[in-house]
């Protein structure tokens, strides 16, 4: 059979039941693994006289995975850092059973409500429906499921008896919450230490309510707390409890402190001027309910989600003219297309291909920004285009305040200098493939390892750290 395999890869029929492993009961006898048909497929690939042999024999190379592997999941599921069964829950929505869809989402997603609003949607980019008309609105469908009024949140399994010391997680952002969720589900005692008064990290302190309503974050956190996770707020590690005491009281420690320090524009003397703000502290101030006076004309430098959030927040607090300055072209912006279009609709001006060179000031107060036009060059290995400054193509934009949103990096200044934790590039923590740091029993997850990433990637990192901690504790002989 001749098919355009490069256009429509073969797909498998959806399964009807899923085996789920209860770690409290699993004695790791491996009978299940030894009895899995996937193991037998190796020998049965070439068999005659059976349906399976017929399916696998004489297929075009590449149309069936190599011996010893399973058939690949759908592209959306492969693209999702959490590996969610996208087709499974969409099929349940189509069948009019959103509560069953939510149960499928919860299998792999610790923060479904949050993802329904602000996921960066890697699944939609690879949706095969794109070859026919449009990719599916997968995020909108997830939001429909979590908002469906009659959907009862499935009650979390009753907390099993916890023995010994709990696992401590520092930071209650997406990575910390995901790790706590998975560890609690595996039957461990977990406590989260959060420096701010409200848990959620960037979800509560960064993303404004017109994109992510607080009730979504609260719902997800309530669900995780119902699983037996303790969340302690206002616990600033380094000021109050020292890391050493926390480590002594815990079976293991996960650092999920995020990337909290805003990068600067790299212009001398910028942060001493009145009217200069960094994006993160601005959004944090706003989430805490403090009033902001940004003046009539605001400039935001940067092209990510945070930059557009800051620009749209400024517009809503009463600034008349908000301009976004971005060094690459409009289509290169790291923020999502939908967010860029919404910002343009609302009247945010975007000056793409402009690089700030100097901040104009009058008596130590921001007066404007001098920029130079850039032109786009070739793509580098990472797929980002380089840009070159066009000599002499300078222009000035007047402004009452300037918001720098040019990126973040982890802030580890609270760690004592002599603390034996290895550092990697970009002020991140040094970890191995298991997300273990250089100190035994201390793991790291989320932006503090990867640098700024998306919510869903941070969650995937947290889930991975949870697996590593679980293996670490089993190896230590704490259980079984």
């Amino acid at each position, binding site marked *: *059979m*001749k*098919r*355009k395999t490069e256009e*429509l890869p*073969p*797909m*498998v*029929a*959806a399964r009807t039941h899923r085996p789920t492993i209860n770690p409290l009961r699993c004695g790791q006898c491996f009978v299940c693994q030894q009895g899995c048909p996937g193991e037998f497929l190796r020998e049965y690939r070439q068999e005659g006289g059976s*349906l399976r042999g*017929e*399916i696998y024999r004489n297929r075009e190379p590449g149309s069936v995975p190599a011996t010893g592997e399973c058939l690949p999941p*759908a592209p959306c599921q492969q693209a999702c850092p959490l590996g969610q069964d*996208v*087709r*499974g829950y*969409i*099929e349940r*929505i*189509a069948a*009019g059973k*959103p509560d069953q869809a939510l149960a499928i989402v919860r299998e792999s997603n610790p923060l479904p409500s949050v993802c329904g*609003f602000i996921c960066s949607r890697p699944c939609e980019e690879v949706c*095969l*429906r794109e070859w*026919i*008309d*449009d*990719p*599916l*609105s997968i995020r*909108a*469908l997830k*939001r*429909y499921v979590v*908002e*469906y009024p009659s959907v009862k949140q499935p009650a979390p399994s009753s907390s099993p008896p916890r023995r010994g010391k709990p696992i401590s997680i520092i930071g209650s952002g997406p990575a910390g919450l995901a790790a706590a969720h998975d560890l609690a589900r595996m039957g461990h005692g977990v406590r989260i230490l959060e420096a701010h008064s409200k848990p959620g990290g960037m979800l509560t302190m960064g993303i*404004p*309510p*017109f*994109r992510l*309503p607080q009730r979504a974050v609260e719902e997800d956190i309530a669900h995780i707390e119902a699983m037996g996770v303790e969340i302690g707020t206002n616990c600033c590690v380094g000021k109050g409890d020292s890391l050493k005491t926390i480590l002594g009281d815990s079976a293991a420690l996960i650092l999920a402190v995020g990337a909290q320090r805003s990068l600067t524009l790299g212009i001398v003397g910028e942060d001493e001027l009145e009217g200069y703000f960094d994006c993160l502290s601005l959004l944090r101030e706003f989430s805490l309910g403090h009033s902001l006076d940004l003046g009539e004309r605001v400039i935001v430098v940067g092209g990510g989600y945070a930059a557009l959030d800051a620009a749209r927040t400024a*517009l*809503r607090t009463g600034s008349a003219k908000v301009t976004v300055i971005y060094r690459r072209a409009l289509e290169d912006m790291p923020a999502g297309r939908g967010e860029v279009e*919404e910002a343009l*609709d*609302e*009247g945010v001006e975007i000056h793409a291909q402009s690089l700030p060179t100097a901040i104009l000031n009058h008596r130590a107060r921001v007066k404007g920004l001098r920029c130079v036009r850039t032109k786009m060059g070739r793509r580098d290995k990472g797929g980002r285009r380089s840009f070159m400054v066009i000599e002499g193509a300078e222009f000035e934009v007047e402004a009452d305040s300037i918001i720098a949103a040019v990126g973040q990096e982890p802030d580890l200044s609270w760690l004592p200098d002599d603390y034996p934790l290895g550092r990697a590039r970009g002020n991140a923590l040094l970890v191995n493939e298991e997300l273990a740091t250089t100190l035994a029993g201390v793991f790291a997850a989320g932006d503090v390892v990867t640098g700024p990433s998306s919510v869903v990637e941070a969650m995937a990192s947290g889930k991975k750290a949870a697996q590593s901690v679980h293996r670490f504790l089993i190896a230590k002989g704490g259980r079984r």
Partner: protein
Amino acid sequence: MISKACELKRNKRVRSTSLPTEQRRRSFALVDKGLSEKEAISEASRCLGTLPCQSCDICALLCPDLCITWNEVTEQIEVDYDYCKGCGICAAVCPKKAIDMVQE
């Protein structure tokens, strides 16, 4: 015969409605209004995973007359009825039951 196996209607994605621009500029209300139940079900039904035929090709592999083929032009799976004896193997093995045997 193969019924509705690869019938694909082209329909665009359902877009959720947004708050009007004038209202957005002065309030922090959520911009995206989300999908209604009807919209969500129609959007979910577009997923290729919910289609009856999943192009697994099992029917074609097991056809004794090699008469189930992929039509490059129409991009659909089709049966060559000049050679099909009507044995019914394809309908029996189809995991999604996308093939019906129809009386002639």
